[in-house]
């Protein structure tokens, strides 16, 4: 199935991705030219390949679909994604993966500011570096960064786990470095493998909440 956005509107593509007939389909999208809302709200297990750069909110609210973008993504990539896989072969703009509940988001380039803000269960793997205020108030889910992290990473973080291979410019309030246990090495190795990245898990450091800012109750530890 092919969509040429130079001729057909975005709604044409998105409606198709909402319908059961897209189940199992291989969809190719040409001439995205940075348009907004490409492949938003996909509901079925299908493959979507976008040939070019995308604008705001690409792959937002995604469920089940495997979406690949051969280019850069604008703000709000995979916002509130529920499941499935989204892979960006270039860079992602600000607040990618915001409030997302599940699935895997892979950025092959860099992610800009507020990456994974208010994360609620999505796993994000960034092959490059991330911008300032990333993982702000992240509740659960994992953020893996193979490059560096800019200022105030993990500010007011809850129980999301962050793994960074490079330098962290500064940690936000209540975010601290934590020891890497075997279980962390194992989960990081799996995430890197799923993202297709060949880095040694031992080269990463783990960051998370100091639990001084919110009312952490040890009885709820199994929820995260």
């Amino acid at each position, binding site marked *: 199935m092919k969509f040429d956005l130079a001729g057909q509107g975005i709604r044409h593509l998105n409606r198709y991705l909402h319908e059961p007939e897209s189940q199992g389909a291989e969809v190719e999208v040409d001439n995205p*030219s*940075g*348009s907004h809302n490409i492949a938003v709200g996909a509901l079925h297990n299908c493959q979507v390949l976008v040939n*070019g*750069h995308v*604008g*705001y909110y690409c792959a937002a609210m995604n469920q089940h679909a495997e979406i690949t973008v051969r280019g*850069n993504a*604008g*703000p709000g990539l995979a916002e509130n994604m529920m499941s499935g896989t989204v892979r960006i072969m*270039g*860079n992602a*703009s*600000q607040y990618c993966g915001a409030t997302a509940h599940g699935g895997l988001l892979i950025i092959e380039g860099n992610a*800009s*500011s*507020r990456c994974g803000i208010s994360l609620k269960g999505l796993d994000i793997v960034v092959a490059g570096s991330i*911008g*300032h205020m990333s993982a702000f108030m992240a509740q659960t889910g994992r953020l893996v960064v193979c490059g560096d992290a800019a200022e105030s990473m993990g500010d007011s973080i809850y129980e999301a786990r962050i793994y960074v291979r490079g330098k962290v410019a500064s940690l936000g309030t209540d975010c601290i470095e934590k020891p890497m246990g075997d279980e962390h090495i194992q989960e990081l190795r799996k995430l890197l493998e799923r993202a297709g990245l060949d880095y040694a898990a031992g080269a990463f450091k783990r960051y998370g909440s100091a639990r001084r800012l919110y009312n952490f109750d040890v009885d709820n530890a199994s929820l995260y």
Partner: protein
Amino acid sequence: MCGIVGLYTKNSELQSSLGSLLSAMLVQMADRGPDSAGIAIYHDTVGTESIKVTLQGDQDTDWQLIERQIAEGLDPTVKVAPIATHAVVLLSVDGDHAVEWIDGNLDAVRMTSNGRSIEIYKERGHPREVIETFGLDDMTGTHALGHTRMATESRVTTEHSHPFSTGMDLCLVHNGSLSNHNRLRENLRADGIRFQTDNDSEVAAGYLTWRLKQGATLKESMEAALADLDGFYTFAIGTKNGFAVLRDPIACKPAVLAETDDWVAMSSEYRSIAQLPGNEKARVWEPNPATVYSWERES
């Protein structure tokens, strides 16, 4: 929400199509700002003994009368070339004197720019209409900025539209909103900076004018703005030989920069840059917060 675009040619062959390229970029930003649009274009540089002023009137402005008034009161050699509701005025007098005279003597029109290269055109209406009104597609030049406005802080009028002149051959376009503009405007007024509107972005322009008048470089002025302006902003600032970009330290107002061997472009969104020749091979990145980016050609 507003849209900003800027294009700076490195390859002189692109200068003949600067207007049409900027127009293609600006139309992409129409959704971000359907209320009004404006452009600053740098071209047809006049000699060191001359000055070029853009005046903004309306459909009923009698430009022949304006020309006579200037000829009698300021400069007998004046040439006035009307373009829709605006006119480009060529003068052979001292720049500061010309600005002061026009400000004090021409009540029917308002000055949008002054310098040796810059011309500023802005009008209410959909960006596509504004582009057609001024014939942007046929304009040539070295570099240009454009703005599409969705008003949040002040009314939708031509005077409130961007770009705002910040001095000789300087202008500013803004996406965002400033929260300390009222106090800052009063302070700047007390120091002799003139304001035409209650617009927050005009205060940012006035602030830079004030810093530059004190002898600061453009880069120093922009760095000082980081401390003195409170609010959200992505600024693009046009200079005689190039342009500069600055985002506030939180940087939630979008900005994309792209560069090839032939041009440097900035926009609120990538889709404007996708209109440019060779965009698929451009280096594309987001400017860092609180960091001054600038491009200058040798003058």
